[in-house]
C-alpha cells in the first residue's frame, strides 16, 4: 500500500461515518485550540511586557533602594535609601555616565481651566527626557536651575495637556497640584506607555520641589545611561554608592548593600521567568484536554474496529496483511487527530486573535503574534496522539483472524 492509498482509504472510511468522525475530532480540536490559545496569549503577554521595558535599553541602568532580595524580585517594603546627594555624585561620575536622572512619584489633585483630576506627578530631573528618548511638543523640559531653585514649574504629558487646554497653548499658563500653583514650562510629545504607566497622562515637576512640598527625602529610583559596557558601569556605580552610603562590602555581596542595580538583562530574565511559568500552567491545562481527546479517539477507534469486524475480515480475505490493516487503522486515527489538530490550530489562533483585540482595547500595546512554537507543537502533538491512542485499536483490528471476522456478519 502506498502512502496515498493509505490516506485515501482512511479518508473514505472516515467519511462513511462522517458525523462520528467530526464529533471525535472535536476533542482534539478543543485540546489543540487550548494549547494554541495558551501559547499565543502567553507569547503576546511576554512581547507586551518586554515592549513596556523597551526604554530600558541595553545601555541603561536603574538603581533601586534596598538590598537585592534572594528571590530576585524587588520587595515593596524596602527602606528608602536613595538621596539627593547620591544623585549629585552620580551625575558628576564622569563621561562614562553622561545621563543620570532621579525620580519620585506622588499622586495629587490637579486643577486647571475648570478641570479637576487625580494625576500622577513625577518629581524628576533634567536628564529624564533624554534618557527616556522623549521629545517636547512645545516649551522646555525641566532644567538644572529649576532643580537647584526648587522652582514651582511643571511639564505636562501630551494627553493631559490636550485634555485640559484642548488646542490652546498651555505653555506659560498655570495649574494647581493640591494647594500649590505651578507655571507650565512645556508639553511633551506622545511617549506612550512605559513600565505599564501612561507617560502621556502625567505631570513632571522638579524632584526637589516635590521633596519640599510633599515632605519626602528619598528618590524611588535613579535612572542612568552609560557609554561603557553594562557590567563595568554597574560595578563602578556599586563602588560609588557603597562609598556614599559608608558600606563596607569589598566582596561585593549584593545582599549587604542598601541598593541594587537592575539592567535590561535582569528585567528580561524576570519577565521570561514569569511568562514561562504562566505558559507552563496554561499548557498543562491544555494538555489535560488533549489527553481526554486522545482517550476519546482510542475509544471511538475501538468501537470502529468492533463495528467493522466483517470489513476487516473481507480485507484480509482479499489479501490484506497484518501490517496493511494495522497501518490502515493507524492512518484513520492519525488522520482524525491531524485534521482535528489543524482545525484546532486555526480555531485557537482565531480565538487568540479576538482575545488579544479585546485585551488591547483595555490595555493598549498588546499585539497578536502567530505562535509558531504553538503551531509546531500542536501539529506534532496531534500526530503523536493519533499514533499513540490509535495503536491499540489498530493492533486489535490487525490481529483479528479473517475467519472470525467474516463470521461476525
Amino acid at each position, binding site marked *: *500500500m*502506498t502512502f*496515498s*492509498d493509505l490516506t485515501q*482509504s482512511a479518508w*473514505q472510511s472516515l*467519511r*462513511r461515518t462522517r458525523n462520528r468522525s467530526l464529533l471525535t475530532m472535536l476533542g482534539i480540536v478543543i485540546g489543540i485550540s487550548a494549547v494554541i490559545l495558551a501559547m499565543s496569549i502567553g507569547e503576546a503577554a511576554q512581547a507586551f511586557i518586554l515592549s513596556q521595558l523597551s526604554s530600558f535599553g541595553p545601555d541603561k541602568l536603574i538603581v533601586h533602594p534596598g538590598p537585592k532580595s534572594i528571590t530576585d524580585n524587588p520587595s515593596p517594603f524596602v527602606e528608602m535609601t536613595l538621596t539627593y546627594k547620591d544623585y549629585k555624585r552620580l551625575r558628576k561620575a564622569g563621561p562614562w555616565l553622561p545621563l543620570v536622572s532621579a525620580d519620585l512619584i506622588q499622586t495629587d489633585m490637579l486643577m486647571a481651566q475648570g478641570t479637576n483630576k487625580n494625576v500622577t506627578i513625577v518629581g524628576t530631573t533634567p536628564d529624564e527626557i533624554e534618557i527616556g528618548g522623549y521629545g517636547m511638543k512645545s516649551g522646555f523640559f525641566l532644567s538644572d536651575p529649576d532643580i537647584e531653585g526648587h522652582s514651582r514649574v511643571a511639564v505636562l504629558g501630551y494627553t493631559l495637556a490636550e485634555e485640559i487646554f484642548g488646542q490652546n497653548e498651555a505653555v506659560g499658563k498655570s495649574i494647581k497640584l493640591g494647594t500649590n500653583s505651578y507655571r507650565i514650562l512645556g508639553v511633551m510629545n506622545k511617549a506612550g506607555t512605559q513600565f505599564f504607566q501612561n507617560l502621556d497622562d502625567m505631570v513632571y515637576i522638579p524632584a526637589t520641589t516635590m521633596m519640599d512640598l510633599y515632605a519626602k527625602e528619598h528618590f524611588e529610583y535613579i535612572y542612568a545611561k552609560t557609554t561603557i559596557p553594562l557590567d563595568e558601569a554597574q560595578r563602578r556605580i556599586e563602588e560609588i554608592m557603597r562609598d556614599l552610603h559608608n558600606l563596607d562590602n569589598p566582596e561585593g555581596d549584593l545582599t549587604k548593600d542598601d541598593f541594587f542595580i537592575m539592567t535590561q538583562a535582569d528585567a528580561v530574565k524576570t519577565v521570561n521567568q514569569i511568562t514561562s511559568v504562566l505558559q507552563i500552567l496554561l499548557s498543562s491545562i491544555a494538555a489535560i484536554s488533549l489527553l481526554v481527546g486522545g482517550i476519546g479517539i482510542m475509544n471511538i477507534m475501538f468501537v470502529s474496529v468492533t463495528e467493522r469486524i*466483517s*470489513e476487516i*475480515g*473481507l*480485507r*484480509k*480475505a*482479499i*489479501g*490484506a*496483511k*497484518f*501490517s*496493511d490493516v494495522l497501518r490502515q487503522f493507524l492512518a484513520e486515527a492519525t488522520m482524525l487527530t491531524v485534521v482535528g489538530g489543524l482545525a484546532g490550530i486555526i480555531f485557537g489562533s482565531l480565538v487568540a486573535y479576538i482575545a488579544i483585540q479585546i485585551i488591547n482595547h483595555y490595555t493598549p500595546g498588546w499585539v497578536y503574534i502567530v505562535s509558531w512554537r504553538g503551531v509546531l507543537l500542536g501539529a506534532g502533538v496531534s500526530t503523536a496522539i493519533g499514533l499513540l491512542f490509535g495503536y491499540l485499536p489498530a493492533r486489535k483490528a490487525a490481529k483479528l*483472524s*479473517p*475467519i472470525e471476522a*467474516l463470521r461476525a*456478519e
Partner: protein
Amino acid sequence: MPNDEVIRVEGLKKSYFNEGIETPVLHGIDFMIPKGQFVAIMGPSGSGKSTLMHILGFLDGLTGGKYFFEGRDVSTLDEDQLAQMRGEKVGFIFQAFNLLPKTSVLDNVMLPLLYSDVPPGKRKEMAMLAIESVGLGHRALNLSNQLSGGERQRVAIARALIRRPPVIFADEPTGNLDSKSGAQVMRILQDLERERGHTIILVTHETYTAEHAERIIKIKDGLLVKDDLVSKRFIASDGDELKK
C-alpha cells in the same frame, strides 16, 4: 503432480479448541480438483463444508493432513504468505456480499488492488473491465447501498475477479437473492468456468444450485460421503429462475 492439478488434500483434518476442549470438524478428507473445474461442495449445515472452504481459501489453518495448492504445501506458509495467496490465488464471493457500505461500485471492485503491486494508474481501468464483465458498467459510480441484491452480488463477483485468480470460492452465493438474480449469478459463474477457465468452488446446501456444477462433493459430519460427476448438468441462461 499432474499438470492440471490445482488443489489436492490428503487426510485433511480440522479441530477447534475451546478452553482446552477439542471439537473435531473434519475427520480426514481426500480429493483433487483439476484446473478449470466447477465443483460444488454440498452438505447440511454443521457438516463442515464451510470450514473446508475456509481452509481451501487460506482463511483458516488445518490441524492434520496435507493441503497442496498448485503443488505447494500450504502448511509451510506464514501469515503474510497466506495473505499473499489470498490476494493472488483466490477470489471470494460471500452470501452476504460483504461490500463496503456507502462506497462506489468502482471503489469496492478496486479494493483488492490496494493489496497488490498494480500501480495506482492502472487500477481504474482493470476495475472497469471487471465491472463490465458482470454487466454493471452503467452502475460503476453508484454507491453499493443503492444497488439491488443481485447487482451487489455481481459487484462482489467483479471484485473476486479483478486480480484474475485461478480459483474462485462462492459461499452460498445465491442464498440472499431472489430466484431470478440467483440464476443470473449462476450463469456468470458458469461463464467464468467455461469461457475463462477459472476453477470455481461453490459451497451450497441446495441441490438445485449444486447441479450447475460439473462435480459434486458431499460432506457429512466431517467426512466426504460422495464425490460424483454430475450426469445431467444444468446450464443456466438468461431468463432462467432458480428453483428454491
